[in-house]
């Protein structure tokens, strides 16, 4: 009994302790790290990763996975860039609509078609990527300088904090609210813990699944829009490099792959750990590409630690 309690506590505090530890180490190496300027830029840098990871948390909690977020991010950015000259602020709405629609598509095929989520999202990722290429004709779609006004809400600051951070905080609060205070949040955790039991208890598992994927699509679209704002162009390949860091963030934060355990605060900490590690590796001088190796290894290690072996009946 005692060892079990210790085990749970260790896992619970691991992400927070790691963040504190990394911050200390980095500030020892480079005292400028703690400066206000650096913290602000760190927050801005992490914001997209945090948002995408929060969306993915919903999906992973139900025991699925979404390999198409990279394409949703790119495609929503492209849609906003293409629609901005003609539709003004409505362009952002179109981007969000696309994210929700893509998520809906993913969800309905996984739920109703009973197809494995990794195959469906692998395929739909290709579809959205294709869509992004078609809309953008293969080139980044720039925003004309006279329309910069439309982007200003993304890159400006309010009350001393970058707008991007405020949006991120709002989404984090929203996510925590859904998971902990609503019925659907309880259902999501229940599905992760045991889908068959949840279904037999009368919960409409399919509808929850669809909503989870739609949420993920929405979050990914928001991430795509913020990236668009920062880069001032819609690029069809911008989201490709986000898949690995996002999944690693969620897993490092402590959300178990088997579903049912974890949540948004942990994922946020996980995202910060990833970014701090990246910064740290840059400071030490490790090749940018070697960081991929480190992330892959961390992914495997953390999944192993967080796996709940009792739930593994038949492992695929």
């Amino acid at each position, binding site marked *: 009994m005692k060892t079990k309690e210790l085990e749970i506590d260790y896992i619970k505090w691991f992400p927070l302790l790691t963040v504190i530890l990394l911050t200390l180490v980095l500030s020892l190496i480079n005292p400028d790290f703690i400066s206000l300027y650096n913290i602000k830029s760190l927050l801005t840098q992490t914001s997209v990763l945090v948002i995408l990871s929060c969306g993915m948390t919903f999906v992973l909690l139900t025991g699925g996975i979404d390999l198409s977020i990279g394409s949703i991010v790119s495609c929503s950015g492209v849609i906003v860039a293409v629609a901005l000259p003609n539709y003004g602020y409505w362009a952002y709405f179109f981007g969000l609509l696309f994210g929700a629609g893509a998520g809906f598509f993913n969800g309905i095929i996984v739920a109703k078609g009973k197809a494995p989520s990794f*195959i469906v999202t692998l*395929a739909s990722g290709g579809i959205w990527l294709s869509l992004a290429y078609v809309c953008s004709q293969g080139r980044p779609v720039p925003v004309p300088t006279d329309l910069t006004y439309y982007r200003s809400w993304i890159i400006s600051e309010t009350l001393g904090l970058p707008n991007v951070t405020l949006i991120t905080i709002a989404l984090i609060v929203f996510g925590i609210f859904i998971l902990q205070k609503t019925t659907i949040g309880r259902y999501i955790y229940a599905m992760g813990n045991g889908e068959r039991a949840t279904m037999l208890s009368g919960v409409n598992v399919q509808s929850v699944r669809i909503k989870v994927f739609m949420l993920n699509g929405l979050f990914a679209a928001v991430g795509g829009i913020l990236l668009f704002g920062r880069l001032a162009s819609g690029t069809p390949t911008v989201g490709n490099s986000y898949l690995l860091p996002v999944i690693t963030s969620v897993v490092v934060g402590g959300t178990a792959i088997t579903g049912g355990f974890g949540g948004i605060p942990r994922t946020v900490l996980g995202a910060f750990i990833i970014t701090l590690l990246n910064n740290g590796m840059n400071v030490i001088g490790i090749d940018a590409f*070697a960081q991929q190796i480190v992330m*892959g290894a961390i992914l495997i290690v953390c999944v192993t630690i967080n*796996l709940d*072996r009792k739930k593994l009946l038949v492992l*695929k």
Partner: protein
Amino acid sequence: MLIYILQRKSNIIVDFLKCLKKANMSVIAPVATLILLWVIIGIKNPRLLSWFGFSRFLLTVIPMLICSFGVSHVIRMGSIDLSIEGQVSLSGVLVSYLVKNEMNSYDMGFWAIIIAILVTTIMGVVNGLIHTKLKIPSFLGTFGMGAIANGVSILIFKGNPIRIVDKGFRQISLGKFINIPNMIIIALVIYLILLFLQKRTLLGTYINAIGGDESLAGMVGVPVNKYKVISFGIAGFCYGVAGVMLASRLGAGMSDLGNGLLFYSITGVVLGGTSILGGSGGVTRTLIGVLIIATLKTGLIIFRISPYYQDLVTGLVLIITVLFSVKRGILQIAK
């Protein structure tokens, strides 16, 4: 010894013909689709139907075909391997690093190929071990390993394509033997070996059993873990061969040799009729599935549809096929 092998192989051919005679829907549908597509293409561009055109077409598809052979073993077991791109890139970069090239003074010739393929086979085995020993779901474990492999290949590659100078090495992809391109011969040999493994050895039967119902197979006495690791190892071997071929064909080693392979390889396997849930299918079905994908791609080019639509078409086709292979009542295209 030679006669023994010849006898075995002719048995396989007889088996193959018997299979076709069975008029099994899951074999007929993909083959019929393939023939239909080729008829359409032939009408539009008859030059492609000549031996020259067809062999050119085959050549573009062979690396992906070999990757699909590898993945089909994993998918038949009910798992999945997302590390294809990383392993292929690693093998290609490694082999071009070790063969005579413009960047360094290594000149290992034939041994470079052995080393590269050995490395990816070992990586495949590690994939299998991560899955069986650490109990990590295959899509995550292989995802992580693929990232590691990709990272290592980028490290070796360091941003500049490693140009290969070794003429003999390039003959692998460019040369012909009795007027048949080398790559087709290599692919044929690998196909026959894998077919033999699948139909005539315990390995093939066990992999089908594990895919069909894993817990049952375990209870009956199948050493599930050992054969899972072997499966992933075979897959790694295939990726290594494909990487070597790609490096040879391109004449240079780059870390994005593997790009795009994951999506198309898996689609090829699924299209051929191998069920995602495992338990049915095999290298022959995969062969047909990959040919369908490649034909679709070629068809899009011939009909002058923008290449941006390729992924869209492939993705839709993949989803539709998976839907049909899971819903058993409606159309029995696959188990």
